[in-house]
Protein backbone atom coordinates (compact mmCIF):
# COMPACT_ATOMS: atom_id res chain seq x y z
CA UNK A 1 0.00 0.00 0.00
CA UNK A 2 2.60 2.49 1.07
CA UNK A 3 4.45 2.74 -2.15
CA UNK A 4 7.44 4.97 -2.68
CA UNK A 5 5.43 7.52 -4.62
CA UNK A 6 2.91 7.96 -1.83
CA UNK A 7 5.79 8.31 0.59
CA UNK A 8 7.52 10.87 -1.58
CA UNK A 9 4.39 12.96 -2.06
CA UNK A 10 3.80 12.96 1.66
CA UNK A 11 7.35 14.11 2.31
CA UNK A 12 7.12 16.79 -0.37
CA UNK A 13 3.65 18.13 0.33
CA UNK A 14 2.97 17.54 4.01
CA UNK A 15 6.23 17.36 5.93
CA UNK A 16 7.17 21.02 5.23
CA UNK A 17 4.02 22.18 7.04
CA UNK A 18 4.54 20.27 10.26
CA UNK A 19 5.33 23.35 12.35
CA UNK A 20 2.31 25.25 11.14
CA UNK A 21 0.12 22.18 11.71
CA UNK A 22 1.46 21.89 15.23
CA UNK A 23 0.80 25.55 15.92
CA UNK A 24 -2.87 25.16 14.93
CA UNK A 25 -3.20 21.98 16.98
CA UNK A 26 -1.71 23.74 20.02
CA UNK A 27 -4.20 26.56 19.79
CA UNK A 28 -7.11 24.16 19.41
CA UNK A 29 -6.16 21.68 22.13
CA UNK A 30 -4.32 24.17 24.41
CA UNK A 31 -1.92 21.44 25.40
CA UNK A 32 1.47 20.77 23.77
CA UNK A 33 1.40 17.00 24.26
CA UNK A 34 -2.21 16.67 23.05
CA UNK A 35 -1.29 18.81 20.07
CA UNK A 36 1.48 16.40 19.11
CA UNK A 37 -0.96 13.49 19.21
CA UNK A 38 -3.41 15.42 17.07
CA UNK A 39 -0.72 16.29 14.52
CA UNK A 40 0.47 12.72 14.36
CA UNK A 41 -3.06 11.52 13.74
CA UNK A 42 -3.62 14.24 11.15
CA UNK A 43 -0.44 13.21 9.38
CA UNK A 44 -1.66 9.62 9.26
CA UNK A 45 -4.90 10.79 7.71
CA UNK A 46 -3.03 12.99 5.28
CA UNK A 47 -0.76 10.14 4.30
CA UNK A 48 -3.66 7.84 3.56
CA UNK A 49 -5.44 10.48 1.52
CA UNK A 50 -2.34 11.93 -0.12
CA UNK A 51 -3.58 11.02 -3.60
CA UNK A 52 -6.43 13.45 -3.09
CA UNK A 53 -4.11 16.34 -2.33
CA UNK A 54 -3.87 18.28 -5.56
CA UNK A 55 -0.64 19.93 -4.49
CA UNK A 56 -2.08 23.35 -5.15
CA UNK A 57 -2.52 24.30 -1.52
CA UNK A 58 -1.07 21.48 0.59
CA UNK A 59 -0.85 23.70 3.67
CA UNK A 60 -4.57 24.50 3.62
CA UNK A 61 -5.32 20.87 2.90
CA UNK A 62 -3.27 19.73 5.88
CA UNK A 63 -4.72 22.41 8.16
CA UNK A 64 -8.24 21.23 7.35
CA UNK A 65 -7.21 17.71 8.34
CA UNK A 66 -5.52 18.96 11.51
CA UNK A 67 -8.63 20.91 12.41
CA UNK A 68 -10.82 17.85 12.00
CA UNK A 69 -8.40 15.61 13.84
CA UNK A 70 -8.35 18.13 16.69
CA UNK A 71 -12.13 18.23 16.86
CA UNK A 72 -12.34 14.44 16.85
CA UNK A 73 -9.76 14.38 19.60
CA UNK A 74 -11.57 17.03 21.62
CA UNK A 75 -14.93 15.31 21.18
CA UNK A 76 -13.39 12.17 22.60
CA UNK A 77 -11.35 13.76 25.37
CA UNK A 78 -12.90 17.16 26.12
CA UNK A 79 -16.55 16.67 25.14
CA UNK A 80 -17.75 19.74 27.01
CA UNK A 81 -15.77 22.13 24.83
CA UNK A 82 -17.14 20.70 21.62
CA UNK A 83 -20.71 20.65 22.83
CA UNK A 84 -20.32 24.32 23.59
CA UNK A 85 -19.54 25.00 19.95
CA UNK A 86 -22.90 23.66 18.82
CA UNK A 87 -24.81 25.85 21.20
CA UNK A 88 -23.38 29.06 19.77
CA UNK A 89 -26.12 30.86 17.95
CA UNK A 90 -26.12 33.94 15.84
CA UNK A 91 -25.30 36.82 18.13
CA UNK A 92 -28.23 38.96 19.23
CA UNK A 93 -28.37 42.31 17.51
CA UNK A 94 -26.31 45.04 19.04
CA UNK A 95 -25.56 43.01 22.08
CA UNK A 96 -22.79 40.64 21.20
CA UNK A 97 -20.71 42.19 18.44
CA UNK A 98 -20.64 45.75 19.66
CA UNK A 99 -17.49 46.96 21.34
CA UNK A 100 -17.23 46.24 25.03
CA UNK A 101 -17.68 49.09 27.43
CA UNK A 102 -15.54 50.81 28.44
CA UNK A 103 -13.36 50.51 25.37
CA UNK A 104 -9.58 50.65 25.58
CA UNK A 105 -7.84 52.99 23.18
CA UNK A 106 -6.00 51.65 20.14
CA UNK A 107 -2.62 52.66 21.55
CA UNK A 108 -3.29 50.61 24.67
CA UNK A 109 -4.38 47.59 22.63
CA UNK A 110 -1.29 47.74 20.48
CA UNK A 111 0.94 47.67 23.56
CA UNK A 112 -0.86 44.72 25.14
CA UNK A 113 1.49 42.29 26.82
CA UNK A 114 2.20 39.36 24.48
CA UNK A 115 1.85 36.61 27.10
CA UNK A 116 -1.35 38.14 28.45
CA UNK A 117 -2.76 38.31 24.93
CA UNK A 118 -1.90 34.69 24.21
CA UNK A 119 -3.64 33.67 27.44
CA UNK A 120 -6.68 35.70 26.43
CA UNK A 121 -6.76 33.93 23.05
CA UNK A 122 -6.47 30.56 24.77
CA UNK A 123 -9.46 31.44 26.97
CA UNK A 124 -11.73 32.17 23.99
CA UNK A 125 -14.49 29.60 23.42
CA UNK A 126 -13.39 27.05 20.83
CA UNK A 127 -15.60 28.30 17.99
CA UNK A 128 -14.25 31.82 18.32
CA UNK A 129 -10.68 30.74 18.99
CA UNK A 130 -10.69 28.57 15.90
CA UNK A 131 -11.57 31.32 13.42
CA UNK A 132 -9.37 33.89 15.15
CA UNK A 133 -6.32 31.62 15.09
CA UNK A 134 -6.88 30.62 11.46
CA UNK A 135 -7.20 34.26 10.47
CA UNK A 136 -4.56 35.90 12.66
CA UNK A 137 -1.89 33.27 13.16
CA UNK A 138 -2.31 31.24 9.99
CA UNK A 139 -3.16 34.38 7.99
CA UNK A 140 -5.89 32.68 6.00
CA UNK A 141 -8.57 34.53 4.06
CA UNK A 142 -12.22 34.41 5.13
CA UNK A 143 -12.91 31.92 2.38
CA UNK A 144 -10.08 29.64 3.47
CA UNK A 145 -11.15 29.89 7.11
CA UNK A 146 -14.71 29.05 6.09
CA UNK A 147 -13.54 25.96 4.20
CA UNK A 148 -11.40 24.72 7.04
CA UNK A 149 -13.87 25.49 9.85
CA UNK A 150 -16.68 24.19 7.62
CA UNK A 151 -18.99 27.11 8.27
CA UNK A 152 -20.39 29.80 5.94
CA UNK A 153 -18.31 32.95 5.44
CA UNK A 154 -20.96 34.97 7.29
CA UNK A 155 -20.40 32.79 10.34
CA UNK A 156 -16.64 33.26 10.03
CA UNK A 157 -17.18 37.01 10.00
CA UNK A 158 -19.45 37.17 13.03
CA UNK A 159 -17.30 34.75 15.05
CA UNK A 160 -14.17 36.66 14.17
CA UNK A 161 -15.79 39.97 15.12
CA UNK A 162 -16.96 38.46 18.38
CA UNK A 163 -13.56 36.94 19.14
CA UNK A 164 -11.87 40.27 18.61
CA UNK A 165 -14.43 42.11 20.73
CA UNK A 166 -13.79 39.63 23.54
CA UNK A 167 -10.03 40.10 23.27
CA UNK A 168 -10.35 43.88 23.27
CA UNK A 169 -12.57 43.64 26.35
CA UNK A 170 -9.97 41.43 28.02
CA UNK A 171 -7.20 43.89 27.24
CA UNK A 172 -9.27 46.68 28.76
CA UNK A 173 -9.93 44.63 31.86
CA UNK A 174 -6.68 42.79 32.40
CA UNK A 175 -4.16 45.30 31.18
CA UNK A 176 -1.04 44.92 33.22
CA UNK A 177 0.95 48.04 33.90
CA UNK A 178 3.89 48.18 31.50
CA UNK A 179 7.13 47.44 33.32
CA UNK A 180 9.39 50.41 32.84
CA UNK A 181 12.50 48.60 34.01
CA UNK A 182 12.33 45.65 31.61
Amino acid sequence: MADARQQRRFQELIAPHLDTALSLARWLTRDPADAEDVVQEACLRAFNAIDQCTGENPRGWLLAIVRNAAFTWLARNRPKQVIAIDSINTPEDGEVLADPQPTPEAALIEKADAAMLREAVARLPLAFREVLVLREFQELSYREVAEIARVPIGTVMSRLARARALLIADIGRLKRPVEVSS
Partner: protein
Amino acid sequence: MTEPTPALPDSDVLLANAYVDGELSLGDVAAFERRLAAEPTLAAAAKRLKALRAALRASSQTEPASAALRARVAKIGSPAETSRVLRSARNYEWRRLAAAIVLSAGVASFATDLLLKWPSAPAASEAIVAVHQRALLAADPVEVASSDRHTVKPWFDRTLAISPPVADLAGDGFPLVGGRIDTIDGRRVPVLIYRHRAHLVSVVAIPDAGGRDDGAIPARASRDGYTVLSWRGPDFRFSAVSDVSENELAEFVEKLRRVMTAL
Protein backbone atom coordinates in the same frame (compact mmCIF):
# COMPACT_ATOMS: atom_id res chain seq x y z
CA MET B 1 -7.42 55.85 28.99
CA THR B 2 -10.80 54.30 28.48
CA GLU B 3 -14.02 56.01 27.73
CA PRO B 4 -17.54 54.90 26.91
CA THR B 5 -18.31 55.04 23.21
CA PRO B 6 -21.66 54.74 21.48
CA ALA B 7 -22.23 51.17 20.31
CA LEU B 8 -21.93 50.50 16.58
CA PRO B 9 -24.56 48.48 14.75
CA ASP B 10 -23.47 44.89 14.02
CA SER B 11 -23.28 45.54 10.31
CA ASP B 12 -20.67 48.25 10.89
CA VAL B 13 -18.68 46.02 13.23
CA LEU B 14 -18.55 43.34 10.54
CA LEU B 15 -17.62 45.90 7.90
CA ALA B 16 -14.80 47.27 10.06
CA ASN B 17 -13.47 43.75 10.58
CA ALA B 18 -13.63 42.93 6.88
CA TYR B 19 -11.89 46.23 6.16
CA VAL B 20 -8.91 45.55 8.42
CA ASP B 21 -8.74 42.02 7.01
CA GLY B 22 -8.51 43.31 3.44
CA GLU B 23 -11.68 41.42 2.58
CA LEU B 24 -13.80 44.28 1.27
CA SER B 25 -14.43 44.71 -2.41
CA LEU B 26 -12.96 47.70 -4.16
CA GLY B 27 -16.14 49.72 -4.12
CA ASP B 28 -16.79 48.89 -0.48
CA VAL B 29 -13.29 49.97 0.53
CA ALA B 30 -13.76 53.37 -1.06
CA ALA B 31 -17.19 53.82 0.52
CA PHE B 32 -15.95 52.64 3.89
CA GLU B 33 -12.93 54.94 3.84
CA ARG B 34 -15.23 57.88 3.14
CA ARG B 35 -17.27 56.90 6.17
CA LEU B 36 -14.14 56.53 8.30
CA ALA B 37 -13.24 60.12 7.52
CA ALA B 38 -16.70 61.29 8.56
CA GLU B 39 -17.54 59.03 11.51
CA PRO B 40 -15.15 59.15 14.48
CA THR B 41 -16.81 56.23 16.29
CA LEU B 42 -16.37 53.99 13.29
CA ALA B 43 -12.82 55.22 12.74
CA ALA B 44 -11.96 54.48 16.38
CA ALA B 45 -13.39 50.97 16.08
CA ALA B 46 -11.35 50.28 12.93
CA LYS B 47 -8.26 51.65 14.66
CA ARG B 48 -8.77 49.33 17.63
CA LEU B 49 -9.11 46.35 15.32
CA LYS B 50 -5.92 47.29 13.49
CA ALA B 51 -4.15 47.69 16.83
CA LEU B 52 -5.39 44.27 17.94
CA ARG B 53 -4.16 42.68 14.74
CA ALA B 54 -0.74 44.28 15.28
CA ALA B 55 -0.63 43.12 18.90
CA LEU B 56 -1.61 39.58 17.95
CA ARG B 57 1.01 39.47 15.23
CA ALA B 58 3.62 40.61 17.73
CA SER B 59 2.48 38.06 20.30
CA SER B 60 2.61 35.04 18.03
CA GLN B 61 5.38 32.59 18.64
CA THR B 62 5.85 29.43 16.66
CA GLU B 63 7.60 26.63 18.42
CA PRO B 64 9.01 24.18 15.94
CA ALA B 65 7.93 20.57 16.14
CA SER B 66 10.06 18.51 18.50
CA ALA B 67 12.54 15.98 17.18
CA ALA B 68 10.37 13.27 18.72
CA LEU B 69 7.30 14.34 16.76
CA ARG B 70 9.34 14.64 13.57
CA ALA B 71 10.57 11.11 14.11
CA ARG B 72 7.00 9.87 14.67
CA VAL B 73 5.84 11.57 11.50
CA ALA B 74 8.82 10.33 9.52
CA LYS B 75 7.80 6.78 10.45
CA ILE B 76 4.41 7.23 8.80
CA GLY B 77 4.30 5.13 5.69
CA SER B 78 6.89 2.66 6.85
CA PRO B 79 5.44 -0.84 6.26
CA ALA B 80 4.68 -1.68 9.89
CA GLU B 81 3.04 1.65 10.62
CA THR B 82 0.87 1.66 7.52
CA SER B 83 -0.49 -1.82 7.88
CA ARG B 84 -1.50 -0.93 11.41
CA VAL B 85 -3.27 2.15 10.15
CA LEU B 86 -4.94 0.40 7.27
CA ARG B 87 -6.32 -2.23 9.57
CA SER B 88 -7.74 0.35 11.92
CA ALA B 89 -11.50 0.70 11.77
CA ARG B 90 -11.32 4.44 11.67
CA ASN B 91 -9.27 4.51 8.53
CA TYR B 92 -12.29 4.32 6.29
CA GLU B 93 -13.76 7.29 8.05
CA TRP B 94 -10.55 9.22 7.57
CA ARG B 95 -10.63 8.63 3.87
CA ARG B 96 -14.22 9.77 3.66
CA LEU B 97 -13.42 12.80 5.75
CA ALA B 98 -10.45 13.73 3.64
CA ALA B 99 -12.49 13.21 0.48
CA ALA B 100 -15.14 15.55 1.82
CA ILE B 101 -12.55 18.20 2.57
CA VAL B 102 -11.05 17.94 -0.88
CA LEU B 103 -14.48 18.04 -2.44
CA SER B 104 -15.55 21.18 -0.61
CA ALA B 105 -12.25 22.88 -1.36
CA GLY B 106 -12.58 21.81 -4.97
CA VAL B 107 -16.06 23.21 -5.40
CA ALA B 108 -14.96 26.58 -4.06
CA SER B 109 -12.02 26.86 -6.40
CA PHE B 110 -13.88 25.41 -9.36
CA ALA B 111 -15.59 28.69 -10.19
CA THR B 112 -12.27 30.50 -10.08
CA ASP B 113 -10.64 27.91 -12.28
CA LEU B 114 -13.36 28.27 -14.86
CA LEU B 115 -12.74 31.98 -15.06
CA LEU B 116 -9.05 31.42 -15.42
CA LYS B 117 -9.12 28.88 -18.23
CA TRP B 118 -7.31 30.08 -21.29
CA PRO B 119 -8.58 28.87 -24.67
CA SER B 120 -5.37 29.08 -26.68
CA ALA B 121 -1.97 30.69 -26.39
CA PRO B 122 -2.39 34.24 -27.70
CA ALA B 123 0.39 36.70 -28.36
CA ALA B 124 1.82 38.29 -25.25
CA SER B 125 0.33 41.78 -25.54
CA GLU B 126 -3.03 40.27 -26.46
CA ALA B 127 -2.89 38.15 -23.33
CA ILE B 128 -1.94 41.14 -21.20
CA VAL B 129 -4.79 43.24 -22.57
CA ALA B 130 -7.16 40.34 -21.99
CA VAL B 131 -6.08 40.20 -18.36
CA HIS B 132 -6.95 43.86 -18.00
CA GLN B 133 -10.26 43.43 -19.78
CA ARG B 134 -11.18 40.60 -17.49
CA ALA B 135 -10.40 42.81 -14.51
CA LEU B 136 -12.70 45.48 -15.93
CA LEU B 137 -15.46 42.98 -16.70
CA ALA B 138 -15.29 41.25 -13.34
CA ALA B 139 -17.86 42.21 -10.74
CA ASP B 140 -14.87 43.31 -8.76
CA PRO B 141 -11.51 44.01 -10.43
CA VAL B 142 -9.59 42.80 -7.39
CA GLU B 143 -9.71 39.68 -5.24
CA VAL B 144 -7.91 41.36 -2.40
CA ALA B 145 -8.91 44.98 -2.01
CA SER B 146 -6.45 47.06 -0.08
CA SER B 147 -4.41 50.18 -0.49
CA ASP B 148 -2.04 48.70 2.06
CA ARG B 149 0.81 46.89 0.36
CA HIS B 150 1.39 44.96 3.58
CA THR B 151 -1.97 43.31 2.99
CA VAL B 152 -1.61 42.67 -0.72
CA LYS B 153 1.85 41.12 -0.66
CA PRO B 154 1.08 38.49 2.00
CA TRP B 155 -2.10 37.67 0.11
CA PHE B 156 -0.09 36.83 -3.00
CA ASP B 157 2.45 34.92 -0.95
CA ARG B 158 -0.32 32.90 0.60
CA THR B 159 -2.28 32.29 -2.56
CA LEU B 160 0.46 31.81 -5.14
CA ALA B 161 3.53 31.30 -2.94
CA ILE B 162 5.13 34.17 -4.86
CA SER B 163 4.61 37.89 -4.82
CA PRO B 164 6.03 40.73 -6.83
CA PRO B 165 7.23 43.80 -4.94
CA VAL B 166 4.09 45.75 -4.07
CA ALA B 167 4.26 49.53 -4.05
CA ASP B 168 1.59 52.11 -3.42
CA LEU B 169 1.82 55.17 -5.66
CA ALA B 170 -1.02 57.11 -4.07
CA GLY B 171 1.29 60.10 -3.69
CA ASP B 172 1.77 60.13 -7.45
CA GLY B 173 -1.92 59.89 -8.27
CA PHE B 174 -1.94 56.12 -8.75
CA PRO B 175 -3.33 54.62 -5.53
CA LEU B 176 -3.03 50.86 -5.15
CA VAL B 177 -6.46 49.26 -5.31
CA GLY B 178 -5.50 45.67 -4.64
CA GLY B 179 -4.49 42.45 -6.33
CA ARG B 180 -5.92 39.57 -8.25
CA ILE B 181 -4.72 36.37 -9.86
CA ASP B 182 -5.07 35.69 -13.55
CA THR B 183 -3.59 33.26 -16.02
CA ILE B 184 -1.11 33.85 -18.81
CA ASP B 185 -0.20 30.90 -21.00
CA GLY B 186 -1.63 28.52 -18.44
CA ARG B 187 0.39 29.98 -15.60
CA ARG B 188 -1.27 31.72 -12.67
CA VAL B 189 0.23 35.15 -12.30
CA PRO B 190 -0.20 37.97 -9.80
CA VAL B 191 -1.81 41.17 -11.08
CA LEU B 192 -1.65 44.46 -9.21
CA ILE B 193 -4.42 46.96 -9.80
CA TYR B 194 -3.95 50.72 -9.51
CA ARG B 195 -6.42 53.53 -10.02
CA HIS B 196 -5.83 56.74 -11.87
CA ARG B 197 -8.82 59.05 -11.74
CA ALA B 198 -11.63 57.00 -13.28
CA HIS B 199 -9.24 54.53 -14.94
CA LEU B 200 -7.70 51.31 -13.76
CA VAL B 201 -4.17 50.20 -14.47
CA SER B 202 -3.33 46.48 -14.32
CA VAL B 203 0.26 45.50 -13.65
CA VAL B 204 0.83 41.87 -14.65
CA ALA B 205 3.85 40.24 -13.04
CA ILE B 206 5.24 37.18 -14.81
CA PRO B 207 7.79 35.33 -12.67
CA ASP B 208 11.34 35.64 -13.95
CA ALA B 209 13.55 34.37 -11.15
CA GLY B 210 16.86 36.17 -10.91
CA GLY B 211 15.74 38.94 -13.26
CA ARG B 212 16.49 42.54 -12.42
CA ASP B 213 15.62 45.93 -13.79
CA ASP B 214 18.01 46.62 -16.66
CA GLY B 215 16.84 50.22 -17.03
CA ALA B 216 15.80 49.64 -20.65
CA ILE B 217 12.96 51.68 -22.15
CA PRO B 218 9.73 49.66 -21.79
CA ALA B 219 8.51 47.74 -24.83
CA ARG B 220 5.32 49.31 -26.11
CA ALA B 221 2.28 47.71 -27.70
CA SER B 222 -1.29 48.80 -28.17
CA ARG B 223 -4.46 46.91 -28.87
CA ASP B 224 -8.17 47.66 -28.67
CA GLY B 225 -7.45 51.14 -27.31
CA TYR B 226 -5.23 49.87 -24.49
CA THR B 227 -1.56 50.59 -24.15
CA VAL B 228 0.81 47.94 -22.85
CA LEU B 229 4.25 48.83 -21.51
CA SER B 230 6.52 45.93 -20.57
CA TRP B 231 9.81 45.90 -18.74
CA ARG B 232 12.10 43.69 -16.70
CA GLY B 233 12.02 44.14 -12.95
CA PRO B 234 13.30 42.32 -9.90
CA ASP B 235 12.39 38.61 -10.30
CA PHE B 236 9.44 39.42 -12.56
CA ARG B 237 8.70 40.69 -16.04
CA PHE B 238 6.12 43.39 -15.65
CA SER B 239 3.50 44.69 -18.06
CA ALA B 240 1.36 47.69 -17.26
CA VAL B 241 -1.84 47.97 -19.25
CA SER B 242 -4.49 50.68 -19.23
CA ASP B 243 -6.56 53.04 -21.30
CA VAL B 244 -4.97 56.12 -19.72
CA SER B 245 -2.88 58.17 -22.13
CA GLU B 246 0.41 56.65 -23.13
CA ASN B 247 2.32 59.49 -21.50
CA GLU B 248 0.56 58.99 -18.21
CA LEU B 249 1.17 55.26 -18.33
CA ALA B 250 4.85 55.83 -19.10
CA GLU B 251 5.08 58.20 -16.16
CA PHE B 252 3.40 55.61 -13.92
CA VAL B 253 5.79 52.89 -15.07
CA GLU B 254 8.79 55.09 -14.44
CA LYS B 255 7.67 55.82 -10.89
CA LEU B 256 6.74 52.22 -10.22
CA ARG B 257 10.15 50.99 -11.40
CA ARG B 258 11.90 53.48 -9.18
CA VAL B 259 9.92 52.43 -6.10
CA MET B 260 10.12 48.71 -6.85
CA THR B 261 13.87 48.63 -7.17
CA ALA B 262 14.09 50.52 -3.88
CA LEU B 263 11.83 48.06 -2.03
